[in-house]
C-alpha cells in the first residue's frame, strides 16, 4: 500500500522527484541523487521549521500541515511531521 502509493506519486505527470527523510536528516526513500537529496532535505527542513514557528506563533493551537513552494520552474510540496519529511518536486506545467 505504501510502496504502491509512493510509486504512483512518482509516476504522475511532471513529478521530478520524491524524497522521504526522517527526523535526523537521513533519507529513507529518494528518487533523486544523493547530493540533491541531502540538499533538499536540509534546506527544506529549516524552512519547514520556520514556517511552523510562524504558524504557531500566531496561534499556538494551530500547526503546519502542508507547505507548497511554487517557483518558476517547479513546485516543491512538503508534508512535514515530527518524524519525517515528505518532499515531492513537480513540474506542473509539463
Amino acid at each position, binding site marked *: 500500500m505504501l510502496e504502491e502509493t509512493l510509486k504512483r*506519486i512518482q509516476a*504522475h505527470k511532471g513529478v521530478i522527484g520524491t524524497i*522521504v527523510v526522517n527526523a*535526523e536528516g537521513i533519507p529513507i526513500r529518494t528518487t533523486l541523487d544523493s547530493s540533491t537529496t541531502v540538499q533538499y532535505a536540509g534546506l527544506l*527542513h*529549516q524552512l519547514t*521549521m520556520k514556517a511552523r*514557528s510562524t504558524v504557531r506563533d500566531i496561534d499556538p493551537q494551530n500547526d503546519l500541515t502542508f507547505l507548497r513552494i511554487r517557483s518558476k520552474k517547479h513546485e516543491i510540496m512538503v508534508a512535514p511531521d515530527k518524524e519525517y519529511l*515528505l518532499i515531492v518536486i513537480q513540474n506542473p506545467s509539463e
Partner: protein
Amino acid sequence: MPVRTAKQMKPTLKVTKSRTPNQSTSGVLRVNQSATNTRSVNSSVHRKSFTLAGDSKVLDKGSVQTHKQTVQVFDETGKDVTPQPLYQPEAGALQPKQSKIFTNHDTSGSTLSDFLSTAYQTTNASFAAPFTRSVFGSSSVSRSSQSTMESMNDEIEDPSSKKDISLSLSDVQVRREEIKEQIKEHMLDCMVDCYLTETETIWLLDMPALSVSMDSEEAEVVKSEGRNMAYQELCKNRLGNDKYMERPMQTFNGAPKAKEVQSDSISMVEKATMATHWDIYDSYVSDGGAGNAADGASPTKLDISTLHRVHSSRPLDRTMSGASAISTASTSSSRIDTEAFVVQGENESDPEDVLHSEKFLQDLLVMERAVLENIYQPKLAAYRQLPILPDPNREQKAGDERDGQDDVSLNPALERLWAFNCELTMGRNVSNMAWNKKNPDLLAVGYGQFDFKDQKSGLVCCWSLKNPTWPERIFHCESGVTALDFSTCSPSQLAVGMHDGSIAIYNVQSTEKTPVIDSSDCAHKHTGPVWQVRWVENEHGPGGEDKRETLISVSADGRISKWFLRKGLDVKERKIEDSNIYLVGTEDGLIHKCSCSYNEQFLGTYTAHIGPVYKITWSPLCPDVFLSCSADWTIQLWRQDLFTPILGFTSTHKAVHDIEWSPRWATVFGAVNEGRLEIWDLGSSILDPIIVSMARPGVKLTSLLFATQTDCVLVGDSGGQVSVYKLKNLNAGEGKEVNTLHDIIRSTLASQL
C-alpha cells in the same frame, strides 16, 4: 624577676659552654646565652625548643651565680676568638641590666662581627664611662633594629613573651650537639613564662649644666657676651632664617611581600533561549495548565539542548538529538524536546519504520492529491465551474491557444474532462454509479457484468474527484456488482447488490475490505441478480421509529424486498419517489404503480414498452413526470395519471441502458445506449437529442450519472472507464423549465387528442 634567655646559634660559631664559677664572665655568658636563635615566626614550639631551661637560671639582682658557664667562641679555623673581657664589671650590679639589655637584643640581621662587637662591648657595660655609653649607643642601635624586627614579627602571638623572645636569622645553622645536651624533651613542653619589666633609664646624653653665680667675676661676661647671648640671638633668628630648613625625613618602609593566589579558571558557558509564543504555550500545556503550575517540575524534564521537533509517542523512537544541519543552538524547555531524551535508551530501530505510520500514509494521500491537482487543475476547475486561469509561466504560443479558447462554439457540446480509470478497472463493465449523499466529490462505481456469461468477480471502487487515477477505496466482491446506493442517513454506508442476489453493506469510511453486513446468509435473500438497491427514508418505519432508513432491493427473482416484507412480483426495476408510491418496471415492459401499503396488488399499470424496462426515473423537478427506458430502443415520457406515455423518443436502434434526468434543467435528460451518449433537451427539440457523443470504439456505454452540483455528466462504459463530460452551452434556463415541460406536455396531449 625571672628572665628567660634564648640561645642563639650561628653557623660559623662554635659555642661551647663550660662551667666556671667566674663571676666576671657572667656577663659574657649571659650574652651568649641570651643570643637569639633562628627565627621562629609562627610557632611557639620553636621558641620553646630554643629555650633552655637548663641554662636559664633565675637571675636575681643580687644573686651570685654559682654555676657559670663559660662560652668560648671559635671561628672556622678553630681559633679561639673568644672575646676577652676588656672590663670586668662589678659583680651583680650591672648584670641584670646587661641581661635585660641583651634579652631585648635582637641580633637578627647582624653579622658575626656585630655579634662580636656587641659581645665585646657588653663586657664594658658601665653607666659611668663614656665607653659604656658608646656601648649602649651601639646596643641601642641594635636594639632599634631589634624593635624593627619586633615590629615585623607582630604575628607572634605568644602574649607572654612578646618582647623577650626575639627572632633571629633564618639562615643560621645550628650546631645542635651542645644544645641537645641541654634541651631535654620535657623542657620543650614546659610553659615559658616571660616577664616584661621596665628597664632602667638609659642616659643617652648627659651634659650637666654649669652654673655661675651672679656675684662672681664671670657673671657679666656670661650674661652679656658669651654663649648665652649668642644662644638667645640664635633663637631669635631661627624663625624665617635661611640657615634653617625644614627637611623631611623618610621613615623606614616595611618590606613588602608579594603573595600570589591562583584560583581555578572560571569557565563560561553561553546559554541562549528563544521564547517563542508557541514554545510558551507548549510548556504551559505540558505542565498541565494553570491549575498544576506547581507540579511543573515534571519528572520528565531532562537536559535541554537543541530545539527539536520530536514526537515520542511511537515506541520505536530513536535518538533525535543529532539532527544534522538543522539543529540550532537555541534551547527550549518544552516537553516535546525533553521527551526526546526519554527515549534515548531505546533500541535503534529501523529508520524506515516511520514510513509505516498512519500519519505517513495520510500525508502521502494528501501529497498525491496535491500532485494531481497540479496536473488536473484546469479540468477540475472546469468541473467546478471555476474560471480557468492561464498559467502565467506558460509561454504563450503565438495565438494558437488563445484562438482555441476564444472560439466559443454556440452549439451545445460536451467537453471531455477526464476519466476515472486505473488498471484495476480495466476491462470491467461499469454497471452502476452513485454519488455519495454527503460528500459530492465521492463517487461509487460498481463493476459487474449484466449478462449471465463472463461472470467475473465484482468490484466496487470509491473514487474521489481529487484523484482520478486511483480509487480511494476498493472493495472486491464475490460476484458482479449490479446495484449501488449510498445511504442518506449514514452517508458512509454503501449498499451493494450483486449478481448472485446478495446484498452487502460497506462502510466506506474505514479501509476494511469486508462488508459490514452481508446478506449471503440470509434465508430470504434474493436468488436472482439484484437490479437495484435503494435506501429509503421511511417515516413510518416499523416500530414507530422516525427517519429510519430501510433498504429496499429489487431483484430478478421477482421480489422487492424491504428486508421485512416481500412482494411476489416479477420485477425488473423500479424507482421510488415518495414513500408510499413507487413504480416498478418489469421484464415484459409493463410498469406497475404500487404502493407500500398494498403488498399484494399494484395500483396501475403503464404499458408501452415492448422490451424489458431498464430504468424508470422520476423527474426531480416535476413531481408527476417520469421517464422510462427499455431495450426496445425507446424512451418514454409519462405522467403519473396517464397510463399511456406522453412522448416517446427514439434515436437509434440500440437498447437504451440508462437514462437520467438532469438535476438542474427540467427539460433535459440524458440517455445512454450502447453506442453513444445522448443529451436531450425537450425545450429545444423533442425529436432529436441536442448533444450526441460517440463512445470510444469497441466500448459500450453502460451507465450514466449526472453530477449534482455542476453540469457534468459521467458516463461509464464497458471498458472500465468512467468519463466525465462537461455540458457546455446548454441554453436552458432554470426557472422556466418546469413550465416549459408542462407546456410541452400539454401541447403534446392537446395535439394527440
